[in-house]
């Protein structure tokens, strides 16, 4: 039993969730002990998103990304051209060996004592390494290379890593969502890995607990009407041109909120009930953009003439990969915790790499004005996510529970996504699934307790 909060009497982690009422204690969002355990139990074990291969096309190219509270260098080696990821911390005294956001390097040189690592992370020099009165036979060897992630995966261009050697393969970690993620990384004509990402990462701070947006902003079906009231009222839903969309032939499909309680993934989901793709509907103001996407949609329709689309979000809508990577068919948004009440949010938006410039520009302008702290839509989210935290952490406030019972008891398993619970589109099934998996991680001694699932264990708690 994992316990916390000794100052207020031992409580098991499990006691913070009331499965029957459908509530969780507010301590989960505000208690620093829980935060510290999450960094160890979740962020040291899970597969985390690092970036996209299109950001580092050439040998020696690197970007600095994050895994939870820590920075990692993602670099394409000069010799074997492979991409690897390393903790951005010198093995000697822990200084950052890279303080640039991106670039092209021969080596990463620590500015402190000049310990120096090549683009495969190998220690290739230390200051005074050959000095007769210095290291001598104590000179550090190959085991003093940069700390490398335990496992790394390039999944159709998207880059992922975990610190845990016992974590299952990335595909096993995704489970039934493997096809969904693959689909979201395709270009609009259905070609695998057909996206390139607009650089750089959009990064900004948000004073709240990472789970506020990270766990509950995906498939938060009931938030949009009020949170984004201003965007609708100001006519900004037509911002991409949706106002001129012509109704096409309705495609037979079902839309749900779904949650995989065993793996923690979930979100919006569309099941496509027959081969083919929905008709393209015009939606762009900029001239020529609809022409391009109509043409690529036509090619995709040919590709899927006899195939059923993988389940994925609603239209461009999103699902999340545990713990907190939100994936759409045109952007990836994810969260890096800093401390209990501070999170950094990153966004990376994609476009067909073969699209003409006017299409890339239209998409780029759209994502710039939509997303993040300068975005029409997401600025409203930031306010709500922000003030959840101070209003929940008071001594009285934290004794209350959050309501997560929307749709509780109405979820059903569906053969189309084995092991995944399917529920009404505006329910909180995906959030409950993330907390099921959260509890499993917080209680697990190792990955042995976490995987395989479905056959050997069921982590669904509600």
């Amino acid at each position, binding site marked *: 039993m994992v316990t916390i909060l000794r100052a207020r009497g031992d409580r098991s982690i499990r006691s913070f969730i009331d499965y029957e009422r459908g509530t969780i204690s507010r301590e989960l969002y505000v208690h620093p002990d829980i935060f510290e355990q999450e960094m160890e139990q979740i962020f040291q074990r899970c597969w985390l998103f690092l970036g996209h291969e299109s950001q580092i096309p050439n040998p020696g190219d690197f970007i600095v990304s994050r895994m939870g509270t820590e920075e990692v260098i993602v670099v394409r080696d000069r010799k074997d051209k492979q991409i690897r990821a390393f903790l951005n911390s010198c093995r000697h005294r822990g200084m950052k060996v890279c303080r640039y956001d991106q670039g092209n390097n*021969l*080596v990463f*040189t620590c500015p402190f004592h*000049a310990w*120096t690592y090549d683009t495969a992370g190998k220690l290739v*020099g230390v*200051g*005074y390494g*050959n000095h007769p009165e210095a290291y001598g036979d104590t000179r550090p060897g190959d085991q003093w290379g940069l700390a490398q992630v335990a496992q790394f995966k390039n999944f159709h261009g998207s880059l992922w890593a975990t610190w845990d050697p016992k974590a299952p393969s990335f595909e096993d970690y995704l489970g039934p969502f493997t096809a969904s993620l693959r689909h979201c990384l395709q270009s609009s004509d259905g070609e695998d890995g057909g996206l390139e990402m607009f650089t750089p990462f959009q990064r900004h701070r948000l004073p709240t607990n990472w789970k506020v947006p990270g766990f509950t902003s995906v498939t938060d079906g009931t938030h949009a009407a009020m949170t984004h009231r201003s965007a609708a009222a100001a006519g900004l839903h037509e911002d991409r041109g949706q106002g001129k969309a012509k109704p096409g032939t309705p495609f037979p499909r079902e839309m749900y909120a779904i949650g995989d309680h065993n793996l923690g993934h979930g979100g919006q989901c569309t099941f496509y009930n027959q081969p083919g793709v929905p008709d393209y509907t015009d939606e762009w103001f900029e001239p020529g953009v609809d022409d391009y996407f109509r043409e690529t949609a036509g090619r995709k329709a040919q590709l899927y003439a006899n195939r059923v689309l993988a389940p994925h979000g609603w239209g461009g809508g999103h699902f999340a990969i545990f713990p907190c990577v939100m994936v759409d068919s045109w952007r990836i948004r994810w969260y890096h915790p800093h401390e209990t009440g501070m999170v950094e949010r990153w966004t990376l938006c994609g476009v067909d790499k073969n699209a003409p410039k006017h299409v890339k520009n239209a998409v780029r302008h759209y994502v710039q004005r939509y997303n993040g702290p300068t975005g029409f839509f997401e600025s409203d989210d930031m306010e709500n996510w922000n003030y959840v935290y101070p209003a929940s952490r008071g001594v009285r406030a934290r004794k209350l529970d959050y309501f997560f019972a929307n749709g509780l008891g109405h979820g059903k398993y569906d053969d189309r996504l084995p092991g995944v619970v399917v529920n009404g589109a505006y329910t909180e099934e995906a959030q409950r699934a993330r907390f099921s998996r959260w509890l499993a991680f917080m209680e697990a001694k190792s990955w042995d307790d976490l995987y395989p699932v479905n056959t050997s264990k069921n982590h669904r708690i509600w």
Partner: protein
Amino acid sequence: MAETKGYDLTGKGGIQAWSSLPEGTKLTLLNGAVGEIIANPHDGGWVLIKFQEHPHDPSKVGQEEYVFFNEVQTAAG
């Protein structure tokens, strides 16, 4: 053969000279070894050289190694 040019790695201009040493520059190290720069990371500390002579360890000849600026006696290109 082109005229060789000596680089002054000391004094106020030393850091600029060091950081911009081109490939092909010949370095003589304090221990007497000689090598040619094959890459300069422009980090102020290191250059990658290929050894041409090594008085104490002939097996290093032909090997590549990063050399720290305070191990270098002279640079000429």
